[in-house]
C-alpha cells in the first residue's frame, strides 16, 4: 500500500488567497514574510516581481510612486516602496454579490 501511495498523483488543490505580508529587496529576493507556508513561493516571487517592475517603470515614466494599491474583487495587494525594494501586503476581501451596489 505504501508503495502505491508513493506513485499516487497528488490531489489537486485550490489556491487559497492568503493574508499577510512580505518584504522583498531590489533584486526581487523575498527577505521576510508572514504569509502561510502553504502559499507557493513562486507565486510570492511573481507578485514581488510585478510590484517592483511597476514601481521601476513608473519612475522611468517620470511618475515616481511610493505606494501601490492593486484592487481585485477578492484580494487587495498594497505595496510600499523601500529603497528599491518593497513591503507587500496581501488582504483577501469578501466581494459583494454580482447584483449588489458597487
Amino acid at each position, binding site marked *: 500500500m505504501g508503495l502505491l501511495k508513493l506513485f499516487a*498523483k497528488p*490531489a*489537486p*488543490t*485550490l*489556491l*487559497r*488567497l492568503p493574508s499577510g505580508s512580505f518584504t522583498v529587496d531590489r533584486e526581487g529576493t523575498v527577505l521576510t514574510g508572514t504569509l502561510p507556508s502553504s502559499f507557493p513561493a513562486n*507565486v510570492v516571487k*511573481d*507578485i514581488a516581481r*510585478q510590484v517592483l*517592475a*511597476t514601481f521601476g*517603470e*513608473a519612475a*522611468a*515614466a*517620470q*511618475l*515616481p*510612486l*511610493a*505606494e*501601490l*494599491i*492593486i*484592487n*481585485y*474583487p*477578492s*484580494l487587495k495587494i498594497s505595496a510600499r516602496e523601500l529603497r528599491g525594494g518593497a513591503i507587500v501586503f496581501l488582504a*483577501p476581501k*469578501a*466581494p459583494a*454579490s*454580482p*447584483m*449588489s*451596489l*458597487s
Partner: protein
Amino acid sequence: MERRPKILLADDNPDLLELYREMLAQLPGHPEIQTAAGGARALAMLEAEPFQVLICDLKMPKMDGLQVLAIVRRKYPDLRTVALTAEVDEQFRSRAYALGVDLFWTKPATEHETRLFLECVASLIGRESEVGFRGVQTRSLMDIIQMECLSQSSAVLRITNGPLSGKIWIQDGELIDAEAADLGGEPAFQRILSWKAGNFEMLPAEPSRPRQILKSYNALLLESAQALDESRSGVTAEGAPKTQPSPLAQVAKVEGVEFALTMQAGKPGQHAARGLENPERMAAWARQSLERFRSLGDRLGAGALERIEGFGPQRHVTLAAQEQTEFCVGWKNTLAPDEVRDLMKKVLALWAS
C-alpha cells in the same frame, strides 16, 4: 435547421465527465456536449470553436477552475459559465461570483439536486446574449419598467452598470422616485435610462418612500427615449447641433485631475490625453501595468482587476478599465487616498454617462 446549443464540460475526473455528459445530453434541445480533461484543454477548445455554456470544475491540477474562469470571463464575456465543485468553502464561492460566473453549484449529490442543477443549466442555455440588462433575462430597461408599471407592481429596481448604480421606486404601477449618484427624482431616472447595459434586481417595495416624481411613467419614458435619440443624432430638440465638450475634456475638469489619458483596450497606439506632455510614455506604462496585474489576477484567481492606485510625492495616479476603454488619471498629490477613490468613481460615471 435549428442549431443545437453547445456545452463544454471541464473536469479532471473522467467518470464524472461521462456522467455529466449523459445527464446534460437529456436537456431540452439536446445540446451537444464536449468534454475537456483539464483547464488548458478547455481554453484550447474554446479558442477553436464557440460554445454557449462552460461548466467548469474548480479543483483541477495544473490550472484550477478559478484560473480558467478568470481568463474565460475576460476573453469570452458572452459565454455563460457555471462553477462546479465538491469543495464547500465560502472563499471559493465568493471568488467564483466575483469572477462573474453565472452559477456556482456544489456537485449535486441527490436526485433533487441533480434536477435543480439541470434546470438551471437549461435556463442558462435559453437566455439570449444580446446587449441589455441581465436580471431574470435580457431585456431593455425601458421594457422592464413598462412591464412593472403595466402590471401595477410595487417594487424597487436596483440597477448596476459597472461602477454606476441606481434605484427606481415603483409603487402601484407608478414611478415615484429614482436615485443615481448624487441625483434624485426625474434627473436620476433620465440618467439611469441613458445607461446602455447592466444588471438589475428587484427589491421589495418601499411604500413609505416619499414621491418625488409626479409625471406618469409613459410621459417619462417618452421623454427619455427622445433624449436618447437626440444624444445619438447629436442634435438638440430645437434642431441645433450640440457643442458639448468631449468626454475627455469633461474628465480633465473633474476636481483634482492633473492629467487624463484614455486608451482603447487591445489597440496599442490608440490613446487620447489631456494635461500630458508625453502621453506615449505614460500610455505604455499604464497598458503594461494593467496587463501585468490582469495576468497576476488570473493566476491568483482573484477576479477581474478593478483598479490600480499609485501614490507618489509629485502626483497620484489611478488605472482602471471600463468596457473597451482603459483610463490613466493623474491626481494632485494633496488628495487623500479616499478622495482619489471617490473622484475616480466620478470620472468613470461621467465617462459612462
